[in-house]
C-alpha cells in the first residue's frame, strides 16, 4: 500500500518522543520518507504524550487520522485514540498497565524485570513488537537501536527488543524501497543548520517552547559548528546582546515564541532604527498569553509584521518544510546583513518540533549574499546616504573609523538630530532599503505553487503546506503558498493566482491572518478554512473541510 501510520502513546517521561524518532528511523532504513507529529501537554511527568509516525514512498509532511499500528503504554493511549483505530489496525499494549485491550498484550514489567533492564527499555520492546508485526527483519531493528541507544545501554535494549519481537507475530509486510535512508530531523534542528549555512556565528536565546530545542541543539553542537551559544537573563537581554554582537561584527540569531517576542519588541525597533542586523526565529504557539504552550498555531503573523514602534523595513519568511527551512534560514540571515534589517523566520510548533525525513541533497541553496563593507576611503559615516539605502558597514576596532549607531533620529555620522531635513533624509534612506529588498526578492521563489488546477486553489502558509498539497491532490486543486510575507511579494502573488478559480485559505488560527494580509494588498483570499484548537490539520480532516468549499 506504500504508506503506514503508527501511533505510540504513554505518559510524559516515558520517552515517547525518542521512541517515535526510532520508529521513524525504522522506516527510513527501509527507504521510506517519514513525518512525525508529537503531541504533549505542558508537564514533566504523567499526562498523555503521543507521537504519530507516518511513512510513505513519497515526500510527506502531515499525519492522517487513522493508524495501522497503535502502541499503547497505558489505557489512555487506547481510549483517547479510538477514532484512529480501523478494522486493519494492530494494537500492541503494555499488559502491565492496560486493563481493557484488544490485540497483543506485552507483559512489559515482567520482561524488563527478567532482563534486569531499566524501565525506559520498554520502548525497545514496543519497537521490537512493531518491527515484527510489520514484517521488518531483526537486523533492521537492531541497526536502529545501535545508532539510537548509547553503548552502555545497548545490550539491555537489544535483549528487551528481542523479547518484544518474539512476543507477537507477522501481520503485514513493509516492503523495502529503493530510496535512500534519509536522516530524520526536526524543524528546529534544520533551522540551526540553515542559519550556520548562512553565516551564523552566535545564537542567543531564553528558553521558550517551541524553540527551546533549537537552543539546546545549538548549545550541544557549539563546538562542532564553531559558534557561540548564549542564554542570558531574559528576552530583552537576548535581543540587546545580539545587537551588541552584530554591532561588533558577529552574525547573530536569536529564538523565541510569542511571549518572549513581546519582550523583544523594543529591541526590534532599535534594530530597525540603528540598522543593526538581527535574525529572529519566532516559533508560534497558541495564545493569547501563556495559551497552550506545547501546541501549535499560526496566530502571530500580524504581530511579527507590525511589532515595534515606528516604521521600519523587515524581512519575514514562513517556511513550510525542512528544505525551505534550511534555505530560507540561511537567506534570512544573509539578507538581514545585506540590507541591515531585522529578519524574522516564522515557524510554529508543528514545524519546529515535528520530525521529517531530510534530503540535504535535494536542497538548492539560494545565492550567497554579502554584506556591504566600508572601503576605508574618506571619513567613515555609519549612515552614509546611498542609492539603495544601504550604508557600508565598519565595526568598532577598525582604524580610522568612529562607528556611531543611534536609537535616536540621526544624521549620516550617527549624531542625534531633530532637524526636519536631516530626519527626512535618514527616514527616506531607511525606507529605500525596503524597495531594494523587494526588488532583490523578485529573483527568489517567494511564492510557491504545487499541483494542477482543476477544481480551484488552496492558499496556505507555513507548516500547513504538506497537508494542503496532499489534500489538493485528492481534490484536484493547486496550492499557492507565500513563503515571504514581508516585504509582500505582490507581483509574484498576482501571477500565481491568475485563473485561481474557487479559493480556500487554510490557516491554524481563528481569524484568518494570511487572509487579512492578502486583503490589505488588494487580493481576495477566498473562503477561510480555519482550525484553532492547537493541533495541525490531519490530511483527511482537511480534505473533508475543503470539500465544503470545492464540493
Amino acid at each position, binding site marked *: 500500500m506504500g504508506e503506514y501510520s503508527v501511533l505510540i502513546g504513554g505518559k510524559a517521561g516515558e520517552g515517547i518522543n525518542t521512541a517515535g524518532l526510532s520508529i521513524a528511523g525504522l522506516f527510513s532504513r527501509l527507504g521510506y520518507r517519514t513525518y512525525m507529529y508529537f503531541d504533549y501537554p505542558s508537564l514533566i511527568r504523567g499526562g498523555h504524550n503521543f507521537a504519530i509516525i507516518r511513512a510513505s514512498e513519497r515526500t510527506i509532511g502531515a499525519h492522517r487520522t487513522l493508524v495501522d499500528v497503535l502502541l499503547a503504554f497505558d489505557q489512555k493511549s487506547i481510549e483517547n485514540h479510538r477514532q484512529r483505530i480501523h478494522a486493519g489496525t494492530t494494537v500492541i499494549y503494555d499488559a502491565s498497565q492496560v486493563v481493557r485491550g484488544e490485540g497483543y498484550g506485552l507483559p512489559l514489567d515482567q520482561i524488563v524485570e527478567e532482563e534486569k533492564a531499566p524501565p525506559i527499555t520498554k520502548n525497545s520492546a514496543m519497537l521490537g513488537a512493531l518491527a515484527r508485526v510489520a514484517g521488518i527483519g531483526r537486523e533492521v531493528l537492531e541497526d536502529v537501536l545501535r*545508532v539510537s541507544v548509547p553503548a552502555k545501554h545497548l545490550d539491555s535494549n537489544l535483549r528487551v527488543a528481542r523479547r518484544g519481537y518474539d512476543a507477537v507475530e507477522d501481520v503485514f509486510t513493509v516492503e523495502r524501497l529503493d530510496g535512500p535512508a534519509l536522516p530524520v530531523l526536526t524543524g528546529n534542528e534544520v533551522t540551526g543548520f540553515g542559519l550556520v549555512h548562512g553565516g551564523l*556565528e552566535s545564537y542567543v536565546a531564553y528558553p521558550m517552547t517551541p524553540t527551546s530545542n533549537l537552543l539546546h541543539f545549538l548549545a550541544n*553542537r557549539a563546538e562542532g559548528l564553531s559558534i557561540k551559544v548564549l542564554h542570558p537573563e531574559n528576552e530583552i537581554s537576548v535581543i*540587546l*546582546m545580539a545587537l551588541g554582537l*552584530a554591532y*561588533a561584527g*558577529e552574525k547573530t540569531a536569536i529564538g523565541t515564541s510569542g511571549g518572549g517576542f513581546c519582550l523583544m519588541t523594543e529591541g526590534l525597533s532599535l534594530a530597525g532604527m540603528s540598522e543593526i542586523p538581527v535574525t529572529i526565529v519566532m516559533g508560534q504557539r497558541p495564545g493569547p498569553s501563556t495559551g497552550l504552550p506545547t501546541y501549535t498555531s499560526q496566530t502571530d503573523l500580524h504581530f511579527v509584521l507590525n511589532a515595534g514602534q515606528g516604521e521600519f523595513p523587515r524581512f519575514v519568511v514562513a517556511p513550510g518544510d525542512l528544505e525551505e527551512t534550511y534555505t530560507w534560514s540561511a537567506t534570512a540571515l544573509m539578507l538581514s546583513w545585506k540590507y541591515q534589517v531585522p529578519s524574522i523566520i516564522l515557524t510554529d510548533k508543528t514545524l519546529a518540533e515535528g520530525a521529517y525525513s531530510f534530503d540535504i541533497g535535494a536542497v538548492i541553496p539560494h545565492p550567497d549574499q554579502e554584506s556591504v563593507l566600508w572601503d576605508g576611503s574618506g571619513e567613515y559615516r555609519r549612515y552614509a546616504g546611498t542609492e539603495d539605502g544601504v550604508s557600508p558597514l565598519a565595526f568598532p576596532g577598525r582604524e580610522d573609523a*568612529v562607528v556611531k549607531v543611534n536609537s535616536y533620529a540621526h544624521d549620516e555620522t550617527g549624531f542625534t538630530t531633530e532637524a526636519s531635513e536631516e530626519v527626512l533624509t535618514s527616514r527616506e534612506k531607511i525606507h529605500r532599503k525596503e524597495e531594494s529588498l523587494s526588488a532583490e526578492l523578485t529573483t527568489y521563489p517567494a511564492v510557491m505553487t504545487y499541483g494542477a488546477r482543476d477544481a480551484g486553489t488552496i492558499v496556505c502558509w507555513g507548516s500547513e503546506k504538506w497537508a494542503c498539497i496532499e489534500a489538493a491532490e485528492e481534490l484536484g486543486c493547486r496550492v499557492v503558498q507565500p513563503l515571504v510575507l514581508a516585504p509582500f511579494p505582490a507581483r509574484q502573488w498576482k501571477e500565481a493566482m491568475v485563473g485561481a478559480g474557487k479559493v480556500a485559505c487554510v490557516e491554524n488560527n481563528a481569524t484568518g491572518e494570511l487572509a487579512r494580509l492578502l486583503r490589505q494588498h488588494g487580493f481576495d483570499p477566498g473562503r477561510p478554512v480555519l482550525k484553532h484548537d492547537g493541533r495541525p490539520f490531519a490530511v483527511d480532516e482537511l480534505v473533508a473541510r475543503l470539500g465544503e468549499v470545492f464540493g
Partner: protein
Amino acid sequence: MSPEQPAGKAAGGLITQAENTWCPGCGNFSIQHMMKSAIAELSEEEGIPLENFVLLGGIGCHGKLMDYLNVNSFYGIHGRAIPAATGIRLANPDLKVICHVGDGDTYAEGLAHLIFAAKRNSDITVIVHDNRVYGLTTGQYTPTSPSGFKGRSTPGGITEHPINPLEMVLAAGATHIARGYTKKVRHLKDLFKEAIMHRGFSFVDVLQICATYFNLTDYYNEHAYELAEGEVETGRFESAQGKIREWDYDREAPIALGTFYSVERPIYEEHFQALTAGNPDRRALVRKAIDEWR
C-alpha cells in the same frame, strides 16, 4: 557651553562638534571630560588604540555623552546598555567596553541586566551617572532618591527608601566597585581609568550634581571624603561591605569616595572565545553533521 567645562587640550580631538545641551552646572560635564581624559591617557600610557574604545549609553541626560565624545558609540535604549555591552565584548575581546548609564536607566528600567552582568563577571565597565533624579523627563524620583523626596510624580514625598547600589552589585558578584563625585574630577578620572583597566565587571557609581532638579552640591561637599590608603581592604568582601554600608543613600553619614572592592575572577566572555576562533568553514561543518546524523 558651561563655564565649568574644564579645558581639554591633550584630548581635544575626542570632543565632537555636536551642540552641547546639558544645563549649565550639570555634573555630566565633569564625567564627559574625565572620561575623555581617561581614554586619552589610557591610550597613551597603555597603548590601547583609540578605536578600541566603545561607549554605550542608555536614554536620559547621561546618554548625550554618546554624541559629545568622538569615540565608537552605541546610543541604545533606556536601561539596556549593559546586555549590548556584553555582546560587543563577546564579539571582540580587544575592545574596552564602557557603559554610561543613568540611575533611573539602570537601577529601575534595566536592573536585571546590571545584576546579571555583575553575576557573570562580564568584562565591561559600568559608569552610573547617579544624580538621584530623572532629569530628561523633568524631575521624578529614582531608585536612589532619598526617602521623602518630592518629585513631580510623588508630590507628597516618597515613603520608600533608596537602594544602596554598591551593596547591591557587591552581593550580585561585581569584581570592582567604586564611587566618585563630579566635584572631585581628578579623583573621578583615576577611578575611571582603574575601572576600565580592571579585567571583569567594574562598576563606578558617580554622585552627579543635577543643577536643575536636585542640586546636592552643598550636601556632598559637606559629607564626601576620599578613602585613605588601607582604609578598606579591597580584596576582602566583608571589609568592602562594611565600608559600603557606612552611608545608605538615605540617612546623614560620611560619604566615602574611592575603590571599595577589587578582585580577580574568571570573566564570562572568555568561556566563549575559543568556540569561534579561527573562523572555520562552517558550511563544511554543517554538511559533516548532517552526513553523520543518526
